[in-house]
């Protein structure tokens, strides 16, 4: 059953049509990539999915319910979380605090519990911290819980951002260029990590420039160019697709 269905969404900024009538479908447990040259509208597409931009027309259905034009907070609560193209960690917070923040919407104790440090508050905080450490362990950052996010090496910061998204209990992770700026060895590790996420039952939508990454891990690929969907299919089909090659490398002169 499809977890995410996007039907004909369009985003218009005054005269500029950034995303034009795009439809995609993501099934549960899939890794789906959205690729395209610079300025193709990939990030705008993500920003609509996560509620940063309202959609001009079209609809987004997640888990059977309409999602378009909800606030980012409501979308996170429904189970969809993202990472950013340029890192947006909480730089002056510790690694573990960054992950704890991912739990934000799921915390049940209230303000009075906080002030009175009720047993309910203590119990839940204990559970949250244990769970945060568990997530950090699964991502290989458990020895760095005390570090400030800004002091981590680049690759670790990227992974921490994914850890934070996982902490929201999202079923669908939207990763915006996770391999950007990584060296081949780092992106190879990332690849394995994303595959391990799939095994753990996450559904993943990926925006990526690094074609070696995309071709290796995607189940299906959607290609955007100038805001339009120009191709979709398995990595093999996309690799041979004339339109895609033209969009990336330019058309051959006749």
């Amino acid at each position: 059953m499809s977890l995410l269905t996007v039907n004909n969404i369009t985003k218009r900024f005054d005269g500029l049509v950034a995303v034009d009538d795009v439809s995609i479908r993501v099934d549960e447990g899939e890794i789906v990539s959205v690729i395209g040259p610079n300025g193709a509208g990939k990030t705008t597409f993500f920003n609509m999915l996560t509620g940063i931009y309202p959609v001009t027309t079209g609809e987004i259905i997640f888990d059977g319910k309409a999602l378009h034009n909800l606030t980012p907070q409501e979308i996170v609560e429904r189970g969809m979380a993202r990472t950013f193209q340029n890192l947006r960690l909480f730089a002056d917070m510790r690694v573990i605090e960054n992950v704890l923040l991912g739990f934000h919407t799921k915390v049940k104790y209230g303000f009075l519990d906080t002030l009175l440090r009720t047993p309910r508050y203590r119990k839940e905080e204990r559970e949250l911290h244990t769970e945060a450490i568990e997530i950090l362990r699964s991502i290989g950052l458990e020895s760095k819980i005390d570090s400030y996010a800004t002091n981590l090496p680049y690759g670790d910061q990227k992974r921490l951002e994914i850890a934070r998204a996982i902490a929201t209990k999202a079923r669908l992770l939207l990763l915006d260029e996770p391999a950007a700026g990584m060296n081949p060895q780092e992106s190879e590790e990332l690849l394995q990590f994303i595959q391990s996420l799939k095994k753990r039952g996450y559904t993943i939508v990926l925006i990526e420039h690094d074609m070696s990454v995309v071709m290796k891990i995607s189940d299906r690929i959607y290609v955007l160019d100038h805001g339009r969907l120009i191709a979709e299919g398995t990595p093999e089909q996309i690799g041979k697709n004339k339109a895609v090659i033209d969009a990336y490398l330019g058309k051959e002169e006749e």
Partner: protein
Amino acid sequence: MRNTLGVFSRVRLFIDSRRAIMLPVAIAVLLVLPLIIQSQYILRIMVMIGVYSVLALSLNLVTGYTGQVSLGHAAFYAIGAYTSALLSTKLGLNFFVTAPLAAVFAGICGLMLGLPTLRLTGSYLSITTMGFCEVVRMVLLNWESLTNGPLGIQKIPKPMFFGTPLNLANRGLYYLMLAMVGITAYCIHAIVRSNTGRALTAIRDDELAATMMGVRAMRHKVLAFVVSAFFSGLAGAFYAHMINYIDPNTFTFDTSIVILSIVIMGGMGTMTGPFLGSVLLISFPEILRFMAEYRFVVYGAILVIMMRFRPQGFLGGQQLTSYRLPKHVVRPVSGREN
């Protein structure tokens, strides 16, 4: 890495790593001190340090933890002071009734100011809060039928504790101040260590990312503002009953700046910073009293030097101690790496 650290970071590490001993020792010293010190002049300074600690702790929640710079905190201080003073002089209510009411009223004012203005960011917010401070002062100055205008309110009674007036001579005011500081520090610390506190710090670091993690940024900013106004109002109420006389000129823009300077100097986003900042900035003018008006030059120079060499404040910036996990949570293998 360790040997390159500044002296302040080392002091900080020394204090933080001995937290379990330092806190009880500090409390014990503060409890015993007034029994040794006989000079009412020094006691008064100590009580004022306490008042400013409460103001700085509350502003720190908004500015240090949430990253919203308010230049109008003297307004809530004034609202608390006037509310409590008027309730006690006009209705004859006891301080222990008027002070909480004053704090609640200041909190309500914080809510009313926060709702429209916290949509602003950065310097726009600072200017608006500064304007609010001036509006409050003008109201106090011109609403003569209620506030007695520039003449201020006189003969504000001392807090009565089971029939005994609390003053400096019987040390009652001092211990009352300690209780107030204690309650404020406890509440703010509790907030900071919770889910709410993490959301506030996240808003400071990256508001969009916080929003994308599900934090309702506006709601949290307003909450921080209200809590902050509440405790500033409490400090105001205490001040009014301690001094027995208030007028609008006690609560000027300068006062807001002093509170902000304390927060910045002590270290934004720390629990200990506001205390250190208050001790330094409140006792300094007294120590430098022989310099008369020139002391403001020294005061300014210190702030400039601070901004150049230690912008994060004496105790601010990254801490070297490990993150404090809740009890019974097992720490994974190694601690800090860098």
